[in-house]
């Protein structure tokens, strides 16, 4: 690995590409070359840096300085001033240094972000396996293969208290144990990288920023459960993720980390990427399996669960990207180390996507149990433009709307349960006083209406009924009984829908109507003029 004096990371995602990221990158390379700095300074493409609405974003390491809204014509100045003379270009820097995934230190905050999952994202070159190895990558795999039995790997994961980050929080070690013990010689591990939740991109940051960590996590899982084959099911729109992961897989084969007889230990494992079918419900593990089998992406009935009857009816582990990315650190540093982070029953860290009216929308990784208020007001920088906080939608589209008085909830699996809420996809959508809750709920219901797979009656027709009702309320044609009807329909969807998609709509519907009832009632009045939903 060549030693470089500095790295410039260019964030490449659909948003920044629109803003001209490619042009900026080309210009950077040209300018660096023309000054003979190519050997010293490396320009890297990285996935999203977790910042949105700021045009093309760059970050220069080792200082960790961010530039926003960079135009190609700004490049000579950055190269000349910063890279050559070491003087950051103040007017292009982000005004306040946000605390986010890729920034290694925190500034002026009471609590530090803890990096386990995202430790390397934005730091190393994700397309270079050697850089991953140089920061200690694949040590956990080597440790497991050479000094641990599969059962011991499972035991360590169990002891660590790691729970699934895909939404439900099922204990990962237990899932692996069930699969290992399930009858049959052929087993599979599937990484769920479908990330269909609108606005969420935490898994993508791992896929694009540290693909080898995910591969290592999958290899550990495969070794533990006795799988020979793994699949990564990646959302189809994530073109860069797919490219990066493929490169990482190819490199891993070259380095003898995948394929036959890995590291001479007799363990063999292959990984293949599958592109997602593009439906939200395909993120549900059994629908994902159906889709992998080439069928229509519709959930299967559980039980039997994938741990005994998964892909091609063989025992299968389905784990979220973030879940798997936790595993290498657990194996490398031990369960005891891992348990130091987070709370007793929800150990470790959690990556959140903070969206909406906060100063610093983006990604953060913090310990489990961090209060929601802190996440929004410290890490997210509070509400931007001096507006007041109104509500946070926690857990994604199937999450709950929490008003200010409930913000002290500590974010972990069990605490949230008491608030009838879930961590879900880890998305936190923050709304300021200008948000209309009727409008918000309308867009959530519309989302579910579009994403229902149509298989079961309660969800297929229930979402449609809800849509009709919320439209009516929105137009000022509703009655108070319509609000109760909405709760009733979503309750019966909770009780009788086939899969968690239809079952979970109750959370946003009930929390919105109950916590913001006054606002809904106001909308029932034909004369009422809501500034926010432009009615």
């Amino acid at each position, binding site marked *: 690995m060549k030693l470089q004096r500095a790295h410039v990371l260019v964030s490449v995602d659909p948003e920044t590409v629109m803003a001209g990221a490619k042009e900026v990158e080309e210009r950077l390379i040209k300018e660096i070359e023309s000054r003979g700095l190519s050997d010293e300074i490396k320009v890297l493409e990285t996935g999203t840096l977790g910042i949105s609405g700021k045009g093309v974003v760059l970050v220069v390491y080792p200082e960790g300085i961010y530039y926003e809204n960079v135009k190609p014509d700004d490049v000579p100045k950055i190269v000349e001033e910063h890279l050559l003379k070491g003087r950051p270009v103040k007017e292009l820097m982000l005004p306040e240094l946000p605390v986010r995934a890729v920034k290694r230190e925190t500034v002026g905050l009471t609590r530090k972000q803890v990096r386990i999952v995202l430790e390397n994202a934005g730091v190393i070159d994700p397309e270079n396996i050697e850089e991953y190895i140089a920061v200690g990558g694949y040590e956990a795999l080597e440790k497991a293969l050479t000094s641990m039995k599969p059962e011991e790997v499972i035991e360590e994961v169990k002891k660590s208290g790691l729970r699934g980050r895909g939404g439900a929080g099922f204990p990962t070690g237990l899932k692996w144990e069930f699969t290992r013990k399930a009858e049959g010689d052929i087993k599979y591990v599937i990484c769920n990288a479908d990330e269909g939740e609108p606005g969420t991109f935490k898994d993508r940051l791992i896929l694009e920023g540290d693909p080898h960590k995910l591969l290592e996590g999958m290899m550990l899982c495969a070794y533990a459960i006795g799988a020979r084959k793994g699949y990564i099911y990646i959302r189809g729109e994530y073109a860069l993720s797919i490219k990066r992961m493929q490169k990482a897989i190819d490199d891993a084969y070259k380095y003898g980390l995948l394929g036959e007889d890995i590291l001479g230990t007799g363990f063999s494992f292959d990984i293949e990427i599958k592109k997602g079918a593009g439906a939200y419900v395909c993120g549900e593990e059994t629908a994902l399996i159906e889709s992998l089998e080439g069928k229509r992406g519709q959930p299967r009935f559980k039980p039997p669960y994938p741990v005994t009857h998964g892909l091609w009816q063989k025992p299968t582990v389905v784990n979220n990207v973030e879940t798997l990315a936790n595993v290498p650190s657990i194996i490398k540093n031990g369960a005891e180390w891992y348990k130091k982070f987070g709370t007793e029953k929800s150990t470790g860290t959690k990556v959140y996507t903070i969206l909406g009216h906060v100063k610093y929308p983006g990604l953060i990784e913090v310990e489990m149990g961090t209060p929601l208020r802190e996440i929004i007001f410290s890490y997210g920088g509070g509400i931007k433009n001096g507006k007041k906080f109104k509500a946070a939608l926690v857990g994604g589209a199937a999450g709950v709307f929490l008003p200010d008085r409930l913000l002290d909830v500590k974010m972990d699996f069990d605490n949230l349960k008491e608030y009838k809420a879930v961590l879900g996809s880890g998305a936190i959508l923050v709304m300021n006083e200008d948000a209309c809750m009727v409008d918000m709920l309308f867009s959530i219901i519309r989302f579910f209406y579009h994403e229902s797979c149509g298989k079961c*009656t*309660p969800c297929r027709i229930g979402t449609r009924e809800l849509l009709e009702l919320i439209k009516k309320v929105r137009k000022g044609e509703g009655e108070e009984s319509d609000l109760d009807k909405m709760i009733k329909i979503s309750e019966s969807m909770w009780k009788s829908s086939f899969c968690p998609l239809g079952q979970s709509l109750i959370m946003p519907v009930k929390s919105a109507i109950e916590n913001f009832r006054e606002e809904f009632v106001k909308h029932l009045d034909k004369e009422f003029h809501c500034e926010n939903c432009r009615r």
Partner: protein
Amino acid sequence: MAEMVKLYIDGKEVEVPKGTTILEAAQKLGIYIPTLCYHPDLRPTGACGICVVEVEGAPTPKRACCTPVTEGMKVTTNSKSLRELRKGIIELLLSDHHVDCPSCPANEKCELQSLANYLGVDMNALPKILERKPLDETSIAIVRDPNKCILCGRCIIVCNELQTVSAITYTNRGFEAHVDTFFSMGLGNSSCVNCGQCTVYCPTGALTEKSEIDMVWDAILDPDKHVVVQEAPALRATLGEEFGMEPGTVTTGKMYAVLKKLGFDVVFDTNFAADLTIMEEANEFVQRVKNGGPLPLITSCSPGWIKFMETFFPDIAKHVSTCKSPQQMFGALAKTYYAKEAGVDPSKIVSVSIMPCTAKKYEARRPEMRDSGYQDVDYVLTTRELVRMIKEAGIDYKNLPEEEADELMGMYTGAGTIFGATGGVMEAAVRTAYWMITGRNMEKVDLKVVRGIEGIKEAEVDIDGLKVKVAVAHGLGNARELLTKVRKQLEETGESEYAFIEIMACPGGCVGGGGQPKGSDFARRARRGEGLYKEDKSLRYRCSHENPAIKRVYEKFLEKPGSEIAHKLLHTYYFKRNIVSGEAIEEVTHKH
């Protein structure tokens, strides 16, 4: 012995094998749990949610039809909250449903309607979100009304898994999800073989036969027309149950009586033509055995199977008997032999057949089925349509005095009647082939090994020292399995272990036909089959060649089996078809 699990349903203890569902366990206790998408013959889809029950300790209710029991489980099947929930689901379904029960073909047989009644839902008092969609009327045999579909998924499982035709599948998602054909081309432009099994399993009026009731009424009421009717074997074992009699009761005499009452001019019987088919087919078999093949000979009386063969197995067409089905043999004779004997102008004859089958509607309209110089069979009604006509006419079927069929083409033997059950054609053909080869009747005509509801049956028949291996498959999935094996044998060695194969498109044979009453499950099909075997046993003649009416038709008109005129009127040829559209591509066998 399977591992047993003990659980409690509504406080009652029950022990069942591991893997049993809550629904099955409840049935064992005689406890009723309402279901809608579930059907005992099919893999459960869990689509509707009607069968939800409460399980102690579970946060939400569970679907009884697909949830396996666990040790010590405590289940409640009925409560105020469950009732509300079930009612809510029915209300959701009805809000997206074109409710017009009185004029719906499924009326009184509709599972949605009966559940709505059971749960006390006022079917018309609900706000509608239904967006009317056009009907699929492209098919000659089947009509699909998406406005009555509840997306239970049964038809898809039936078509894809039971019949392995795969003409229909789910399309689109969410509220837009629906059952559709490839590229929405419609059933008439698809690989659908018209077997109608989907219409039997469809719990509502969303899939039905294309009705010809109106045309038949018009013909009956037209004084200028001479309406001749034939009824398939399975009818006599089915009609009774639709009028409150035990399933499997054979009501031949009432069947004739009701047809006369409805106003048909002449009432004959397809069973006569079944005997004729046996004469021709047994002769064909004997000729093939004598002349070195091609064997196996495969039966041809099931038009759903014929289109399936033309679509998926055209390479074995030369193995399929050239005999028309009994319906079409009858049709060709009605406008020739009967017209001549009775002195009726064939152009005035309207030939109606009543069949347990939807594929027969398609068969009657195949362009080649005009050997009498007219369309041989004009209208085909299903069992369901006849039942509706009887109800429309307000006839008390159960108490109707019995009558006889008209003679010329109404007399039949036990061999003709068992045509309606799986294995029956084989058994009937063996009886006559034996006689043709040896010149005498079998000592024991019963061939019990090929009876019954098992999917593929095999037997070795001893015809006076000549050992013949035969096989019987019913349901197209089974047919596909058997023929794939035969095809492989033929490809590898040029011959097959079987000499004679019977195939029927419908599970159970015609007693389980696609035009039979909705909801017919395997158990009921089997009982109807038993009814036919009982009738066979009770009849004076049990072999087709003994039928005096058959002897007469050969004497007076057809000369002998396989004669030139028999070939002209009673035999046919086949096409190769496009797998996607079902269109005929080319002839693969020819008429001699």
